[in-house]
């Protein structure tokens, strides 16, 4: 996506006290992270001015690329003392602007943390630094028949630190869970420079579940400097089946019927006509072009199980008006089936100058309603939409096609997107399934949460970040000072609850 710089986006006010001390601050940071670790040159900083949500750009105040946890701690301690904001960054593939820099904040890149520290097959864990890419973990263990289950489509590039911060998913999370379900331990540096360990190689951390809280916290609570993940033995076999339908409603009914029959597939993905055609033109996956919706269902496990389930899925598909059913007969063919799906975003990028990727989740049975309203909205805004879903768990990725060079189209795309997300919430779903709130969905948070809900979340942030220095301007639509949030207004004195049963 390209185009119009953040017309509507309001970020926290720049701190003039920080801006005027820039050269001093840069010099201080250089003493903490010597060598090439501090980038202050405008041209060199350009590479960091946006993440995967490229509609928004901002040159960082300064970029710092530490190499050791001690350096991270020293930088954070300095920022805490100085009142300097910090934006963590992994590979910068976030689609919600989570890693969008601040003009008066340090952009803290974790890319140099690229070591795999420990692989323990007996305990089925891998401990890695946060800058290791998602795919590199699987590559490191696949020789022994293992893999790391969550597999975002961006897995070649995105880092495990970014995955933890976004609680990323992938096409296999229906059966194997999201990042939060697949991590066991973290090392985290708090904003005051304190280093903590949470969990380890054992299951379930003791005390409050900080691991669960850090997962999906979008860099607002601490800097992740080490991650211990669960690795799994690769299933004996995996086979995929392509199923084409005359309508999206039929495809949706088929998904419900498969799950209703007690089958939890390894992956269950759906594409609509526009997405099918774009993907087919791009990677020639052999997708049928005369269908309105396509499902890819993958079954994995022992051969005996997979072949039995495949038969049942085929039967269910036919009962749900499938017009095409094709089972992969080789590993190569299975990869081809997936290639189209995994390249769906760039494929859509080829048929439109720009596209805007949404990420709502809905209860699956609401799919027909959501699709039909989406068609109406598409007409209303005069913009096409291609649909790619993680159908098994109701996570939609509508891709809104627009041209940033046409005045008003970006704005229309954003409004269209916001309408879709409001609809998701209205039918019982949520604003974001795996891409995060970031700056993108920040101002829609009131669609889902009350002021009280959001204040409680911000109090949790205060427990980690008393001065609000970690990634401010993301996730929360309005920022409150911690002292203000801590106040309580309760007046007592009345006779307590005459009606409540007491014993």
């Amino acid at each position, binding site marked *: 996506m390209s185009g119009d710089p953040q017309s509507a986006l309001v970020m926290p006010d720049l701190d003039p006290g920080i801006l005027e001390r820039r050269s001093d601050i840069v010099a201080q940071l250089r003493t903490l992270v010597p060598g090439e670790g501090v980038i202050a040159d405008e041209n060199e900083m350009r590479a960091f001015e946006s993440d995967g949500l490229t509609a928004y750009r901002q040159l960082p105040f300064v970029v710092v690329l530490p190499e050791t946890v001690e350096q991270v701690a020293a930088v954070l301690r300095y920022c805490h003392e100085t009142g300097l904001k910090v934006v963590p960054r992994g590979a910068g593939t976030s689609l919600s602007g989570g890693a969008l820099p601040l003009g008066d904040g340090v952009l803290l890149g974790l890319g140099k943390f690229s070591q795999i520290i420990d692989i323990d097959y007996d*305990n089925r864990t891998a401990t890695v630094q946060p800058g290791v890419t998602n795919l590199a973990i699987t590559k490191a263990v696949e020789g022994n028949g293992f893999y790391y289950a969550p597999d975002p489509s961006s897995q070649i590039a995105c880092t495990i630190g970014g995955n933890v911060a*976004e609680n990323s998913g992938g096409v296999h999370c229906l059966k194997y869970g999201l990042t939060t379900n697949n991590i066991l331990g973290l090392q985290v540096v708090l904003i005051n420079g304190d280093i903590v360990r949470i969990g380890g190689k054992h299951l379930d951390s003791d005390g409050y579940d900080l691991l669960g809280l850090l997962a999906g916290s979008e860099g607002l609570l601490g800097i992740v400097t080490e991650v211990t993940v669960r690795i799994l033995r690769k299933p004996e076999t995996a086979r995929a089946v392509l199923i084409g339908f005359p309508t999206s409603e039929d495809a949706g009914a088929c998904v419900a019927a498969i799950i209703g029959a*007690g089958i939890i597939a390894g992956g269950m993905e759906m594409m609509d006509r526009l997405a099918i055609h774009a993907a087919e033109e791009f990677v020639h996956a052999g997708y049928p072009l005369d269908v309105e919706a396509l499902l890819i269902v993958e079954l994995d496990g022992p051969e005996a199980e997979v072949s039995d389930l495949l038969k049942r899925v085929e039967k269910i598909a036919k009962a749900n008006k499938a017009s095409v059913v094709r089972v992969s007969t080789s590993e190569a063919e299975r990869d081809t089936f997936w290639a189209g799906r995994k390249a769906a975003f760039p494929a859509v990028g080829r048929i439109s100058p720009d596209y805007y990727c949404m990420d709502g989740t809905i209860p699956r049975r609401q799919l027909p309603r959501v699709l039909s309203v989406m068609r109406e909205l598409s007409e209303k805004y005069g913009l096409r939409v291609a649909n790619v879903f993680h159908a098994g768990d109701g996570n939609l990725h509508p891709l809104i096609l627009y041209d940033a060079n046409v005045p008003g189209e970006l704005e229309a795309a954003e409004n269209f997107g916001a309408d879709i997300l409001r609809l998701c919430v209205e039918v019982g779903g949520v604003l974001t399934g795996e891409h995060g709130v970031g700056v993108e969905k920040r101002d829609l948070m009131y669609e889902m949460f009350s002021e009280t809900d959001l204040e409680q979340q911000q109090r949790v942030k205060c427990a980690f970040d008393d001065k609000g220095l970690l990634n401010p301007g993301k996730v929360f639509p309005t920022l409150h000072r911690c002292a203000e949030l801590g106040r309580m207004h309760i007046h007592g004195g009345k006779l307590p609850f005459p009606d409540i049963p007491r014993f």
Partner: protein
Amino acid sequence: MDILKPRNEDECIEIVKWAVSEEQPLEIMSGGTKRKLGRPVEAATLVDISALAGISLYEPDELVMTAGPGTSLVDIEKALQENDQELAFEPADYGPLFGKTPGATTIGGILAGNISGPRRLKAGAARDHFLGARAVSGRGELFKAGGRVVKNVTGYDLCKVLAGSWGTLAIMTETTIKVLPAGQKIFTVLVSDLADKDAATAMAKALGSTFEVSGAAHIPAGLTPGSGTDKSDMAVTALRVEGIGPSVEYRASGLVELLANERECQIIKTTDSQKFWRNVRDCSYFTQNTNRPLWRISVAPTDGPDIVAAVRSRADISAFYDWAGGLVWMEFGSDPAGDGGAAIVREAVNATGGHATLIRAEDDIRAGVEVFHPQDPVLAGVTARLKNSFDPENILNPGRMYGGV
């Protein structure tokens, strides 16, 4: 003691507001089976939320259920069974460990304690299946956490923090959980007579195989489940596989082949398997002497046997292993130091990493030692601030987890 039994959310809010203004700490209880788990709570008022019960939403093909925290697990499991579904994290009934009759556990208590059974090692813990909640904080404010769909990264995942918070952060008034299809068949491969360390090796081998083991436990010789009659005079290592028939049969025989040179193997089928794993889940081996200190120790699976050996060299204990060795249940036969064995257990666990919880001990012991694993000062600071962010006046179950928390 004053007992209040709210019938709805509004009454919960009213109670907490009163407690805050009168500075009256509250003890929060649902089914009450785990009331003696944790440090003793000093509160003159008990809030019994068991009336906030009932399944308000169950959509089998959406794999989701919403229920009041006081809903009995028996009722939930009955509804699920009718649709061939289950709670995949296999919630345990700890009631009998404390001398209570089985079946009193509620979903609120299970989630508040993050209680999971043997399948935890494959399917995740209670917290992994906890999708959404409505809850009243210690500020007397109703807030919502999560939602009803599995894929949700909208804001902080507060359900995770409520799970395992033992009622110290908020009173849950409604819970939404993920449900899953139950396995049609359950087979268990039993390997006899392995020493603890060899059992851990065998279990690691099984878990590292493609056979999708959903339970891995080792019961040393001499342990008898309190509820059953089968006397075990030989150690038994058990590996469970679940799913559709042909797959289960294939995987069970695959495991037998894999472990054949360890010792003699035997396969037990669905009904016997269910009984066996229920005993492991509920820790039925230690329900006879409810005055004896009992520990639940979570460590890296390969460290389990070393920890048991280290403690055994200094104390009179019985222990068995779940989670492939990663969960050790340990009962002290005697308690000469009067600390429930805390010093010895924690020393052993700290040498490897992990944590130990004193699940059961007399009140005076639990008042004197840390029941949950002591935290380092930085972590303790985060814990205290997190508690404060939900419950600034320390009204809800004060001191149940740690001093002041």
